[in-house]
Each structure stands twice: as C-alpha cells, then as structure tokens.
C-alpha cells in the first residue's frame, strides 16, 4: 500500500476520557469560533441558537467525554457523499465539508459510526462537522480544555502515552 503521510503523520485530537469533567468549554469555544462576532459574551447572548458546536460532550453522571470528527483514514462519510462536498485532503489527512457543495442529503450522517456530523440548524440545508481548526495551531476545543482531556498530537505520540498509562495502572 502507498504511504499516506497525511494519515500517519497528521495530528489528531485524542480523547483522554478519564480527565473530562464535562464542563463543555470545548463546545462553547467551538461555537464562538464559528460565530460571527468571535466574542464569547456576544456570541453566547445573540448567536448561540444558530451555531452548532462541532464537538459533542456526552455525559452520564460522572462519566463524560468530548468527541468530534476522527478524520478517519478510510472515511465512510467521504465515500457516502453524493455531491463531492466531503473530501479528505490527501496531504493533511483532514476531512472537511465544502459548504457550497453540500446539498444536505444526510448520507454522511447515515454512515458516520461516531455520530459526529450534524444537520446545521441555521436554516441552510447543509451538514456541520469539525474541520480540525485548520487555520489555528491548536484546535480551540483542545486549547481551551482546562483539564487536558483533549490532546492534539500525532498517532505515535498517542500510542506512547497509552502504553505509559497502561503500565501506570498496573503498578
């Protein structure tokens, strides 16, 4: 198989479930980023009803985590997209939806096993999903997580961390 630098070396958001306290700041900062004003108070007061967060906090009791698009290597949403709007960038590995092309057929929602693609509430019939904040150094949900429950790192680094935490538990 050919090398896919975009997938092997790209940074992804990894979920550290045990550190999530369910504060939902990730959702709020995501909404602010996609608001018109970009200002938290103004956005919160006037725009929130129209903006979907592209990260989703799931919570039952003390158990919670935040999840957003995983930017899959073999992304089912890209295969399912009938308009060519959903594309995986071959260089960066990032999966984005071209909102000008999307016709709102909801095929991506039908196939995403993570359930992280949503219908946009703002009236236009298009989908809304995480674009990994390609215009920022670090995605805003990661940057504003007070407890480092989201990490923006490469695959290798994540695997190292997972081994460490497994070993830690054994002790």
């Amino acid at each position, binding site marked *: 198989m050919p090398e896919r630098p975009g997938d092997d070396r790209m940074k992804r958001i990894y979920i550290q479930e045990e550190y999530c306290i369910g504060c939902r700041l990730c959702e709020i900062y995501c909404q602010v980023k996609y608001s018109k004003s970009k200002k938290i108070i103004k956005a919160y007061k006037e725009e929130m009803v129209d903006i979907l967060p592209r990260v989703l906090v799931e919570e*039952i009791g003390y158990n919670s985590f935040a*999840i957003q698009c995983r930017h*899959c290597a*073999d992304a089912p949403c890209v295969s399912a997209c009938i308009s*060519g709007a959903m594309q995986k960038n071959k260089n960066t590995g990032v999966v984005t939806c071209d909102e000008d092309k999307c016709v709102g057929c909801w*095929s991506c929602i*039908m196939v995403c*096993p993570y*359930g992280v693609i949503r219908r946009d509430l703002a009236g236009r019939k298009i989908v809304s999903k995480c674009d990994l904040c390609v215009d920022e150094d670090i995605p805003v949900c990661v940057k504003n997580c007070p407890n480092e429950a989201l990490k923006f790192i490469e695959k290798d680094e994540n695997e190292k961390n997972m081994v460490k935490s497994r070993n830690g538990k054994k002790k």
Partner: protein
Amino acid sequence: MERKNKTKKSSELIDYIIIGNSAAGLAAAEGIRELDKAGKITVFTEEGHLNYSKPMITYFLAGIVNLDRVSFKDKKFYSVNNIDIRLNTRIKSVDTAGMSLMAEDGSRYRFKKLLIASGGKPVIPKIKAAGTDGERNRHFNSIDAMNYKKIGGIFTLTTLEDAVRVKDYIEKHGVKRISILGGGLIGLKAAEAFLEMGIDINIIELENRVLSATFDRRASEIIEKKIKNKGSNIYKNNTIKEIYITDGRISGYRLKDSRKMECSLLVIAIGVVPDTGFIDSGKLRINRGIVVDDHMRTSVKNIYAAGDVVECLDILLGENKNIAIWPLAVMQGAAAGINMAGGNKKYSGGFFMNSVEILKVPSISMGMASAEGGKEENIEVLKDFNQEKNIYKKIVIRNNKIIGVILVGNIERAGIYAGLIRNEIDISSVRENISKEDFGIIHLPADYKKHLVVGEGTEV
C-alpha cells in the same frame, strides 16, 4: 483524438478499461492510480455529461443546484489522473473470452483489465395505450421500453438528461401536477424534488403503502400523511392499466380501480435493474447482477465489476445481493481499482441504507428495517413513536445484534446504528438505552465505546 480501428487485429490494447463514469467507475480509476501512475485508463460512458452525480439529479430538478454543480469530481479530475474519457460511447458488446469490447460505432478495444461499472437501468413495464402520435398519426397500442421516449410527457428519472428533459417539459407546458408510477426509493426521491418545487403529485403504488421495502407501516404512514396534507395524492394497491395519448403527448391514464385521471407528466419509477444486456457473458456469471467475490473479481480472470451492476456480499443476509446505493458503489469501486492494479484490498460487504427527506421530514432506514418480529425467531423489535413531534424510531434486533433501523423526524447520530450493524455488536447489555431519543456513544457497550472513544480514527 484517438484513432478508431475497426479490425480486431489492429485494435489498441488498453491497460485498464472502465465501463461507467459514475461512483464505482471513478472510485476505481482513483484506486488504480494509487498504485499505477502510468498505465493507460480509458473510461467509457454512454452519457454526454463529463461527470455528474446520479443522486444529485433530483437536487438539480428542485433547483437546489444548477448544472455546473452536479459534478462530484473536480473538473481537473480526468487530466490530473490521466484518464482518457470517452463520452457518448455505448458499449455494444463485451467479448469475455477474447478480452475485448466493441463500441456502438464498431470500434473495438482490447484490454488487460476490465471493470464493468455500468450501473442500473430503469424498468419500463408494458402498459396498454390508446391514442395517436400528433405528427405522423401513428397509433400507439402500448408503451414499453422501446417507445416510451417517443411520447411527450412520459419520463424515467435516473440520468441527468432525464432530469433536464423533465425540467424543460414542466416549464414548457406549465405542468402543475405530476404523476409518479412507483412509491419506492426513486419515486419518493422524485417526489421530494417536485414537492420542493411546489408541484402537486399523484403517487401510484402497487403495494398498500409507500417505501414498502425499506420502511415499516408506521414510517410509511408518517410520510404519506405529510404528502397528502400538501394536496398531493397517493393511490395505493393500484397501478396504471391504460395510458391515453393525445397529439403525441400523454393526456391521462386509467387506474387499476377504473378511475380515469388527467395527466400531463408521468414519471415511471418502478425500479432499476443491473445493466448487463451488452455482455456476451460466456463464462461471466450473472444472476440478477454480475456475481463478484470479496475482491470485486467476476468469474472471468482480469474482469472486475462494481457498483449498481453487481451482486455481492450482504452482511445481514450472509449471501450475495444487488444493493444499488452510492456509498457501497464507491467502496466497491475503490477496492476493485486497487486490486486491478495489483494491490490487495478486500471489500468487506455491506447492507442497504437510504436517506430521504420529504417536506422537511428527514428519514433514514437501514438493513432489514421492515421486519416486525412476532413469528420470526430471534427477532425483537423496539419502537418509539412521539406523535406530537412526529418522531419515530424503530430498531430491529436479531440474536442481540441490530439488523435494521428506521429513523423518521430525527436522524441525528444515525451512523452510530450503522456502526453497530456493520461491526455486529452485541447490544444485550445496553438494550434499555438503544431506542432512547438522546442515544449516543456513551450508551454503547463498554468495549465498543472504548474502541470509538480511545481508539484512533481509523475504520472501525
């Protein structure tokens, strides 16, 4: 321009020939290019448009996108991938033993590897007709696949050309009401577009409800009510027995129940079958569709097939089936292309799924969604209907695994169910949560939840 040779001896030998310029065919071309940058790829299509998405034609019809935006590949796709695209070229015959094919103009092409991704073609039933052709005063006794295009106002709706012709006809003749023969997937997709355009419809359905193959009674009812409330009609347990033609155009029809209806535009949408008629099959196995294995290989060496023309593994039935849907066509095409170029990519099978939105009510159905349990062993059905919000959710479970889902009104997070079906997850430990309205990953069985949350973002 390519030379056109008529004799077999001098015909050119092409590394990869692909019949079909849609989802499967182009996914295959990309798959080939992942491994083979240089081999010659020639794509044949009988259609005249460079590239368009078939499921988008109803969005074009409804005016949501214009002709410039019906393509699903970039304009540069063919040049970037170095693909020789032959438009308006219907393949007349495929010689599976001689590894060559002939176009309708008599040109012959030899291939090293062939992909048949010719898709489906609409079924036109033979219907009795009465009336005359305006110009030549020719009398029609019946309409069928051969002559229906000669009668104004009778259309199928599976190609972009169909959609353009329907749109023109509506505008030219000021059509206010459209009849759709068939209340299945294509019929309802057409209905979605016409209702969006503000045109009333009559749906004529042989069964006792619309979407009978993919919905259950309740889901059909919700959609039917929505359609009827808008001034449209659904004639169930019915069909067209006779078509009336006036001056070369459809003017009405008679239903099975003897009612006579006026009609200026009829869309025939009773189904689609794999387009295999042009293949001299020889040793190539064709049932309903072309039979392929888990690498998209047909029974003839170096000939592959993918998309709506094939039948391959349905993971819920455990046997081959023709499932003509876009997402599977792309996955099959991609696998076929990689394998044609010498790679090794398995197609792991699929199951039926469909999304349709009628008058702002979105719906998704997947798998064996119409099953009702009861007499069927090991089948259990969970239902949740909120009449006030018109939201319906149904989950079909077999041996503790989900095999079918219907979502009407609220389709949020539908794909989580698709993942549970595809990965055959035992849901017995979380059964009480599975049909909840706010159902999410947090409700899933611990192992699978951990896989989704902690595992990296690869195919699950």
